[in-house]
């Protein structure tokens, strides 16, 4: 017969599902018979006509089973089996001997050489098929097992790689903290060799480590970092950021603990806290110094406004008394002189009164905060200014005005001063008209007092809110303190005041009143 061996039997090429079988017989007829019997198993059957060919095939292939004829020339079945067994690759390949003789000696030798079975000629096809089938199945299971093992190894390798690549020291423990696995960052962080840690409790590293409470395993993404203390091998401590997350292994719960050295972070926080504390202390010192100097200034202003009051009152009274006493004996010139003394004394008196009022408004008094109806306040201010309004023919109008949290007396001061300001600084070309309006804002209210007076140049729009700042001569009879009173009052009420004006056609004074005045300006 032509080929000494047939490398493949059947039309199909080898597939993962098929296993390889080897049949060795010096009689080609026997080989053809075996081939026919095993065809129904649909496996890859290789044929060899002698031991040498069989050995060569065994070097190249892994066989699920070898059917070996005992009686062959040159190298008989036993010798061939011995050689096959001696090779590493085929060391464990199951061998079925085919023999015509049932001699005990043969059987012993065969089993001695690792035979798994004997088949006696003439071959009964069903027996051969079923026996070979067992080995085919065995090989398939082996292959499956091997594949699974490799998969498992790959997965584990990947897992270890991931663990190694993690930015933190990772320790995997059981629920009680017994260390099952750790990455190399653990060695670096704690100065232990990894091997020596396996089996120890994680509390060696993190004494405060706590097992996760029983119950449903929480979503790992919600695990928060907690701060505990890490203990290095040499006993030194460091602040550690700990994140634990449990995961269900096949038969138990494992806990992954990620550990970070947060020394730098903690130091930075401490520095920030220190800086903040320093800052707060300095602010407090400054504030104290400022309020001391403020208080001193306030007392000085108070004393000045009162102590100056006395002499000026005396000057005024005596000027009047003198003019009364010498009445009729003075010429026009002398009477004028006395009148000037009286006028100026009277003016100084007014100024001092205004100054006292300003101090009163800006002083932290005990005035009550209450809901104040702005409509009533404006009406009261207008009533107070009735004489002035009548003398000038001024009109004062206002629309809907809100109820706001305020100190009534201060709000009255503001409206009264702004209205009287609008009338005082009137244009000679027009009858003064004052219009008061309000609007709601995000943080409270904004009020506007609009006049049609002489207006203020933009460069003076800050200046006019200072104490005793006047832009005009006595023609417009102001003390120069009204707007500073407004500013002090509005600021005490938590708001701001400003002016927009077109010189020659009028001014709009606006101020804000916050809805929550006690929150201060931070939220405004």
């Amino acid at each position, binding site marked *: 017969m032509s080929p000494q061996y047939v490398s493949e039997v059947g039309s199909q090429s080898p597939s993962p599902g098929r296993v390889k079988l080897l049949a060795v017989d010096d009689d080609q007829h026997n080989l053809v018979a075996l081939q026919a019997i095993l065809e129904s198993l649909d496996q890859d059957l290789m044929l060899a006509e002698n031991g040498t060919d069989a050995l060569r095939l065994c070097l190249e292939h892994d066989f699920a089973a070898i059917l070996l004829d005992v009686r062959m020339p040159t190298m008989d079945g036993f010798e061939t089996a011995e050689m096959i067994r001696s090779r590493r690759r085929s060391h464990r390949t199951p061998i079925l001997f085919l023999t015509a003789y049932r001699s005990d000696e043969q059987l012993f030798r065969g089993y001695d050489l690792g035979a798994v079975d004997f088949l006696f000629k003439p071959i009964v096809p069903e027996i051969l098929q079923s026996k070979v089938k067992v080995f085919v199945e065995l090989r398939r299971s082996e292959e499956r097992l091997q594949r699974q093992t490799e998969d498992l190894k790959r997965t584990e390798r990947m897992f270890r790689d991931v663990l190694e690549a993690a930015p933190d020291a990772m320790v995997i423990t059981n629920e009680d903290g017994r260390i099952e696995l750790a990455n190399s960052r653990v060695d670096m962080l704690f100065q232990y060799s990894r091997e020596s840690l396996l089996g120890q409790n994680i509390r060696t590293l993190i004494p405060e480590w706590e097992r996760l409470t029983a119950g449903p395993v929480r979503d790992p993404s919600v695990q928060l970092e907690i701060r505990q203390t890490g203990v290095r091998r040499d006993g030194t401590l460091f602040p550690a950021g700990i994140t634990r997350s449990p995961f269900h292994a096949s038969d138990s719960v494992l806990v992954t603990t990620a550990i970070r050295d947060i020394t730098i972070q903690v130091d930075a926080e401490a520095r920030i806290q220190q800086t903040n504390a320093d800052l707060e202390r300095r602010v407090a010192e400054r504030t104290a110094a400022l309020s001391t100097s403020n208080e001193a200034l306030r007392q000085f202003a108070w004393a000045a406004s*009162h102590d100056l*009051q006395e002499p000026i*009152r*005396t000057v*005024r*009274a*005596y000027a*009047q008394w003198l003019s009364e006493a010498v009445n009729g004996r003075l010429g026009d010139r002398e009477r004028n002189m006395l009148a000037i003394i009286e006028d100026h004394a*009277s003016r100084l008196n007014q100024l001092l009164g205004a100054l006292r009022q300003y101090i009163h408004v800006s002083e932290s008094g005990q005035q009550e905060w209450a809901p104040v109806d702005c409509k009533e306040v404006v009406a009261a201010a207008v009533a107070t200014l009735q004489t002035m309004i009548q003398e000038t023919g001024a009109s004062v109008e206002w629309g809907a005005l809100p109820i706001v949290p305020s100190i009534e007396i201060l709000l009255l001061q503001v409206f009264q001063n702004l209205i009287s300001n609008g009338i005082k600084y009137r244009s000679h070309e027009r009858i003064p008209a004052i219009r008061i309006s309000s609007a709601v804002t995000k943080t409270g209210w904004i009020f506007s007092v609009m006049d049609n007076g002489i207006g203020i140049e933009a460069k003076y729009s800050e200046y006019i809110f200072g104490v005793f700042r006047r832009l005009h001569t006595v023609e417009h009879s102001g003390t120069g303190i009204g707007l500073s009173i407004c500013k002090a009052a509005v600021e005490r009420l938590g708001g701001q005041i400003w002016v927009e004006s077109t010189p020659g056609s009028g001014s709009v004074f606006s101020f804000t009143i916050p809805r929550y005045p006690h929150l201060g300006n931070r939220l405004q």
Partner: protein
Amino acid sequence: MKADRDEGRSVRILLAEDNSADVWLIEEALRRQSLVFQLDHYLTAAGAVDAVKKCGVNGSPIPRLLLLDYNLPGGQGLEILAAAAANPNLIGVPKAILSSFLRPSELEDAIRMGASCFIAKPASLTDFLRDVGATVVDLLKHDS
């Protein structure tokens, strides 16, 4: 004040006032009320306290009215009021506080210490003479 004149007695008034310009004005105000009066005038709080303590002691005269400036050098009107309150001879004698201006808290203190009333020193001469004079007459009327 006919009664006073009819009895031929002048009204004795104790005045604590450091501003002699105001002393003149007060005298003028009383004169314009046609009061016959005798003014025991003290320029300092110490002097006034001393005088107040002695009122009615060893036959010394008891004033019909105390006029006390609130702000005096060397002490406040409150000290004089305290001394007056401690002298039983001055029970029922009106004690008026004079000042151009008083803080509400100061006024409260004064009233608590036994002040009968507060007389503001008005800025204009006319007002001063009228207010001080009228108030003094009123206080004396209630007293007698």
